[in-house]
């Protein structure tokens, strides 16, 4: 074994306890070895120690084999993204060890499944642990090797063993007492192995925090599911497609308790029409999908525009076109979502930046859909949906979910598409006593019957499009950080929020005169506000995850300001705060 200062003293802290405020632990291995469940256990364990945790699953689109890893970022302050490098890697197989070793910072630690001897390699501590052998000795299989590894990490990080065991017990409770004992034994064996072999040389990477508060730990998909529940969703239909499937599954689990119909349907074409039918019937209706499924739904969204049906569509972007990268992230459907249509109709597109924002955006989406009788798209991505986030609390907002309905007086006199100043017509549910609701995807008159009259057509188009004026009044403001200033102003939307905020924080800390603007309302676009904001900037930069700069085009078309620089990423991997800072530094200045 090496000396204490040789391989574990990554912050030159000697043997003294080091309080670390921002650590990244990567758990890696091939699919089927329990990488994701090991990552989940570690994530929960650390949240319970009082830390904010952000976990991003980096998985391949396959059920077994390949190479997957979860980046778990542990910090005292909340983070909305991952870092490029890792402090600790736990690799469950040899390939994972080789691939992820390169991610380690100097002084970082690699723990991997091998009977080899510990060594130092390029300033990194390489710590082989015979995890499979230890698990086997105790009667366990490959997934238990991961538990042994978690035990080793526990010792290295100076986490109490009971913290790990408590989470293991809870997570695998359903598998019975015998499985529980085996997990506990594997965790303990790993812990003891780590403590004995590496005794006295572990810097305390992730100590128990002195102050502690309980937090919610949830994925973006779960936050959206909760938002739907908070908004009183009554009907959900979906077709499984990464990364939206988790929303379908979450709501299916809540269907009976909340009295919601949750349907898995034969294809996305049927999904959107089923949702449209439910919305016509008066239900608060929703679906979620990704690019390809969304493409199939666009026809139905047009029907919702024409028949003025309130519905919510969550689009979880992933790289495309066609199949692209099913399990990775991108923001290349910005303009597609903003402009999706046959002809023209009002719609809303919201692009929340974090899981917490996604919760509130979903509630808001239902409110806007109901009040403006229009389709609302919540535009998000794999990075936001699949990541696990810690959130202090989610407040139940009082959303205005009332349909703008009113009962007409005389029997059989209801006019579904009555022309109004706001463009919003009265809404009644079909099944209302002695009234009929008539609606169609063809152009229609105020009663809902088909009409090819030219004057009526113009009046109806104008009525529908007038809803945009009301929607503009509802637009959320720009999220600005650190404040209004900045010679360099960086603009982003959606989940780039977290990484960009971190990059700006880094550069501002270095003395750069920089500010960021996050746009969460894509349609209607906050054109006036953004134009004012950009007018004071010396340099305008757009940061987005696609190959052509769609946000930059949108900003130009809506405000007339052409960004001076565009920073793009389209390899399917999320931006990192430190990586973005590096790319912004030459533009914004700041001490490199």
């Amino acid at each position, binding site marked *: 074994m090496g000396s204490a200062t040789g391989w574990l003293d990554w912050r030159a802290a000697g043997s003294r306890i080091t309080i670390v405020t921002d650590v990244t632990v990567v758990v890696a291995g091939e699919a089927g070895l329990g990488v994701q469940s090991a990552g989940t256990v570690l994530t929960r364990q650390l949240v319970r120690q009082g830390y904010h945790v952000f976990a991003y699953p980096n998985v391949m689109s396959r059920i077994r084999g390949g190479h997957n890893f979860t980046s778990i970022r542990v910090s005292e302050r909340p983070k909305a993204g991952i870092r490029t490098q890792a402090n600790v890697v736990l690799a469950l197989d040899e390939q994972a060890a080789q691939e992820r070793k390169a991610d380690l910072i100097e002084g970082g630690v690699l723990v991997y499944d091998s009977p080899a001897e510990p060594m130092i390699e390029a300033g990194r501590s390489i710590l082989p642990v015979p995890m499979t052998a230890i698990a086997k000795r105790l009667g366990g299989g490959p997934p238990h090797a991961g538990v042994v590894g978690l035990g080793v990490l526990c010792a290295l990080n100076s986490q109490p063993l009971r913290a790990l065991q408590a989470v293991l017990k809870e997570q695998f409770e359903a598998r019975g007492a015998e499985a529980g004992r085996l997990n506990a034994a594997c965790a303990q064996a790993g812990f003891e192995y780590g403590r004995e072999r590496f005794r006295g040389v572990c810097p305390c990477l992730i100590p128990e925090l002195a102050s502690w508060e309980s937090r919610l730990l949830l994925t973006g998909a779960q936050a959206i599911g909760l938002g739907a529940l908070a908004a009183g969703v009554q*009907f959900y239909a979906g077709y499984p497609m990464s990364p939206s499937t988790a929303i379908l599954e979450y709501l299916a689990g809540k269907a009976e308790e909340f009295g919601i119909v949750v349907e898995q349907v034969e294809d996305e074409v049927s999904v959107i029409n089923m949702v449209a039918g439910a919305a016509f019937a008066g239900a608060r209706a929703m679906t979620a999908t990704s690019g390809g499924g969304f493409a199939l739904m666009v026809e139905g969204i047009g029907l919702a525009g024409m028949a003025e049906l309130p519905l919510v569509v969550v689009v979880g972007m992933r790289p495309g076109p066609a199949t692209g990268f099913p399990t990775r992230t991108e923001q290349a459907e910005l303009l597609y979502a903003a402009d999706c249509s046959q002809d023209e109709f009002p719609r809303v597109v919201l692009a929340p930046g974090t899981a917490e924002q996604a919760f509130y955006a979903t509630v808001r989406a239902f409110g806007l859909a109901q009040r403006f009788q229009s389709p609302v798209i919540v535009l998000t991505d794999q990075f936001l949906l699949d990541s696990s986030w810690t959130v202090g609390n989610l407040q139940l907002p009082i959303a205005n979910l009332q349909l703008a309905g009113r009962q007409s007086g005389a029997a059989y006199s209801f006019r579904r598409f009555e022309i109004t100043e706001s463009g919003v017509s009265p809404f009644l549910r079909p099944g209302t006593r002695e009234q009929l609701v008539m609606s169609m995807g063809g152009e229609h008159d105020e009663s809902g019957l088909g009409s090819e009259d030219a004057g009526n057509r113009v009046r109806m188009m104008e009525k529908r499009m007038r809803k945009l004026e009301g929607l503009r009044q509802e637009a959320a403001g720009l999220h600005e950080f650190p404040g209004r200033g900045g010679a360099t102003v960086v603009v982003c939307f959606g989940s780039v929020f977290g990484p960009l905020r971190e990059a700006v924080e880094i550069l501002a800390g270095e003395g750069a005169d920089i500010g960021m603007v996050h746009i969460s309302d894509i349609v209607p676009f906050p054109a006036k506000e953004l134009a004012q904001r950009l007018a004071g900037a010396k340099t305008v930069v757009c940061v987005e995850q696609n190959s052509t700069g769609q946000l930059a085009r949108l900003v130009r078309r809506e405000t007339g300001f052409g960004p001076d620089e565009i920073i793009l990423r389209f390899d399917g991997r999320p931006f990192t705060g430190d990586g973005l800072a590096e790319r912004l530094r030459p533009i914004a200045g700041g001490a490199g």
Partner: protein
Amino acid sequence: MLTAEYWSRAGENAWCPGCGNFGILSALKQALAELQLEPWRVCIVSGIGQAGKLPHYVKCNFLHGLHGRALPTAIGVKLANPGLKVIAVGGDGDMYGEGGGALLHAFRRNPEIACFVHNNGVYGLTKGQASPTSAAGFRTRATPEGTALPGFNPLAAGIAMSGTFVARGFAGDREGLTRLMVLALKHKGFGFIDILQPCVTYNKVNTHKWYQERVFDIGTRQHDPLDIERALERAREWPEADPEGRIPLGLFYSAQRPSYDEQLPVLRQGAPVEARPDPRKVEQAIEEFRQHGRD
């Protein structure tokens, strides 16, 4: 009691004079009258084509939606508000072509809705192209050499998908069609009727006379709708193979299984459109994600 005439909606009708659709419309109004329903409790969802215009001529709620999408739309309406009597209507191009996939899954799902398909073996509204039920060899401007494909057999498909009410009617047999429609509307499950409908403008093969000479009521031949083998045999009878062949009408098959609505536990709590969000339950759902501290 509301008469069939009460179910008429005033206004101009866009169908060709002599169109088979008139027989279907008349049978539907008669069936609705016989069932003593009220217009505000009935909702027709239709697709695109001449058949899709039907709800404009009936006094009831309607959503005249997209081509081929009437069935999923109707299922959405029904599941959101099971109190409504929901009818899906479309033509052969609509239900068997554009919406073919949805039809197969509707048989599987067995929702409590009636589905009436106006099957005239040709595309009318786009002015005379071959439809999924046009016979092989049917010549049109889009298929000048005659379509090479055999016609789609909706009854055989419905039987194969374990349909619980798989029937055929004929627009020229108003009484028989009304009887079938009443049964389909009362059926606890997917009440499907393929309705043979002469097209006076574009289908010069399957004319009114052609049908009249060939149709017969399956019920007069001791047919048992529980017998799947016999039902399939009957479904395959068609003059295309045998010039002397006849065309059976009536209820071919009825698989015995519960409707989707009956199987969906959430519907036992009442109509989903009536469900109110309970803030305590939502708070509980949020709390399920709380990680409780060090132990």
